[in-house]
């Protein structure tokens, strides 16, 4: 590892970062204006988003080209592994904040609102139970059951974890058709998952009166599953990109971090879902 030091790849100066910063500048201002119904907000947001998409494809495209050129030696490869691991750790902590909020409301604040002085003096008649919308919300809703779509979705994601591993084996054995077929299966499962979740949201809004504004349960339910869904979407897009690269003949049995990074990410998303299934839907 250390003898490879002298040729650690240092990229040439690049304009991608400033493009990315511009994208976020537009998006930041755009979003702030949009949320306050002011001026050209949505347009700024759109421009920012377009630049961001351009950036992502451009930058990662360049990385893919560099990788195929053989610019990345084993030490660079190891850097990618460290980098991806720490990135996933940061994602774990992001979800931890929302799981923490769920825990706090369910175990601490909701009971507190229904008992003792707070309950007696401010919210008489509020019975702390879970799921609940909160003492100040008169509307009622039906919580999402665990054993319908969510259970199916659990199966889907678990299966997709297996298929992506199977594809990985294909890559290692240099069995290209297994690789590509495995990836296609994984992507398909991801899309079905998203479709079902979309349907579930539709159902929640239209039949269960379960909305984002439904207090503690509504907020945690939609924020947690929503951010998860967003991650599945990103993961699926990443898988599609990887599929494209595989079909273009990228990656070697002994050198394919691009593929592995995406599969790590996919497994991470999988594990978050298991937690969601248990803590949000089931218990």
């Amino acid at each position, binding site marked *: 590892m250390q003898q490879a030091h002298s040729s650690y790849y240092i990229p040439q100066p690049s304009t991608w970062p400033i493009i990315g910063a511009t994208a976020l500048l537009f998006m930041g201002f755009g979003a702030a204006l949009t949320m*306050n*119904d*002011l001026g050209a907000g949505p347009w700024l947001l759109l421009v920012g988003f377009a630049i961001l998409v351009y950036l992502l494809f451009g930058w990662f495209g360049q990385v893919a080209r560099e990788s195929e050129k053989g610019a990345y030696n084993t030490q660079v490869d190891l850097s990618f592994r460290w980098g991806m691991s720490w990135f996933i750790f940061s994602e774990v902590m992001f979800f931890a904040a929302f799981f923490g909020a769920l825990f706090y409301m369910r175990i601490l604040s909701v009971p*507190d*609102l229904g008992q*003792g*002085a*707070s309950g007696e*003096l*401010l*919210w*008489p008649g509020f019975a702390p139970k879970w799921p609940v919308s909160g*003492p*100040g*919300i*008169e509307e009622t809703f039906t919580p999402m059951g665990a054993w319908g779509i969510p259970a199916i979705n659990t199966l889907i994601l678990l299966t997709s974890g297996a298929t992506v591993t199977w594809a990985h084996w294909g890559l290692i054995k240099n069995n290209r058709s297994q690789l590509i077929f495995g990836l296609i299966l994984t992507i398909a499962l991801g899309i079905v998952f998203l479709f079902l979740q979309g349907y579930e949201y539709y159902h929640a809004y239209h039949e269960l009166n379960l909305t984002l504004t439904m207090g503690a349960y509504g907020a945690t339910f939609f924020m947690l599953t929503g951010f998860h869904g967003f991650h599945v979407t990103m993961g699926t897009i990443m898988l599609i990109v990887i599929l494209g690269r595989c079909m273009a003949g990228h990656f070697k049995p002994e050198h394919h971090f691009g593929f592995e990074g995406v599969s790590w990410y996919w497994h991470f998303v999988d594990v978050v879902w298991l937690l969601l299934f248990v803590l949000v839907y089931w218990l």
Partner: protein
Amino acid sequence: MASTTKNWVTAVAAATWAGNAAAGNLNLQEPTTTIAAQIYSLHTYIMVVCVVIFVLVFGAMFYSIFKHRKSVGHKAAHFHENTTVEIIWTVIPFLILLGMAAPATKTILAMKDTSNADITIKAVGYQWKWGYEYVRGEGDLAGVSDGIQFYSNLSTTKDQIYDKSVKKSENYLLEVDNPLVVPVGKKVRILTTANDVIHAFWVPSFGVKQDAIPGFIRDTWFTAEQTGEFRGQCAELCGKEHGFMPIVVKVVTVDEFKAWAAKQAKDTGAPAAETAAAPAAQAAPEKTAAAGGAADGKKTFEGACAACHMTGVAGAPKVGEKAAWAPRLAQGKDALYEHAIKGKGVMPPKGGNAALSDGEVKAAVDHMVSLSK
């Protein structure tokens, strides 16, 4: 400019320790309850320990700085480890900390014991005033003051604050129209809550500080040991006028307290009944709205909307400015309701008070419109 020199002189003079020590300005305020006294001595104890450690540690450092410098020809030694001293200076601080934790623990448990209060008072934080509600008395205070409610506003006048040439009153910024009145020698339990954002009920000389959190009741207690007026301030950033919502507690004898309470009850007829609904209602807004239909629009307006609509902050149409309202009124009441509830531009939904019911906001709009037609 002429006064600058004078200020300088004043500042320097004031900085003399003697002057300030005499004014009692260098330490915690004089404690007037047992808890405050415990806190006071706890602070003194810990500070002294810290100062001693500090002097020892930095005595060593300065000794070294003067003796072990190159300019006096000191040659560097080369040691860089010594397990024994490292263990010593890990263990000793730990033991010192234990010595601090013990008395602190005792005080914490005492502060938390709100049981067996003689009288219970609810303090409600509003932007920007306090509302007090005497919830219940026990023992010989049973029923004496129950149900009394009033607001307590800063009584320092605006011109004292904004106009340099006006002389400031003695208790500048620490005076209110209606102080909280409590009997001496009785255990007073304070329940805190808030109407809009977090405030904090703080009376330094009682050793009492408790955040007032909207939607929740938290409690604390004190037993005043001497009569007199004791002053504190809201101690949690609560917006624009956070610096202007003081707390004054007037401690009186039990007899005086009873007399005061009786007078309140007599005067109550109108004012107390009017204010009566307010603190409770606003802390639990959904309920009253549901029960009472159109809530008191004036109250809501003062509590939630006036901040902007009295001042014209950020382009909010000022109440009473007919020109500003005419085009808005032209949209029809329903549009106004809708915008007040859902927000519009910089106007936050429900004036930023998600806890308000739709009914209350509508009532507030009615109130505003009635003043601006």
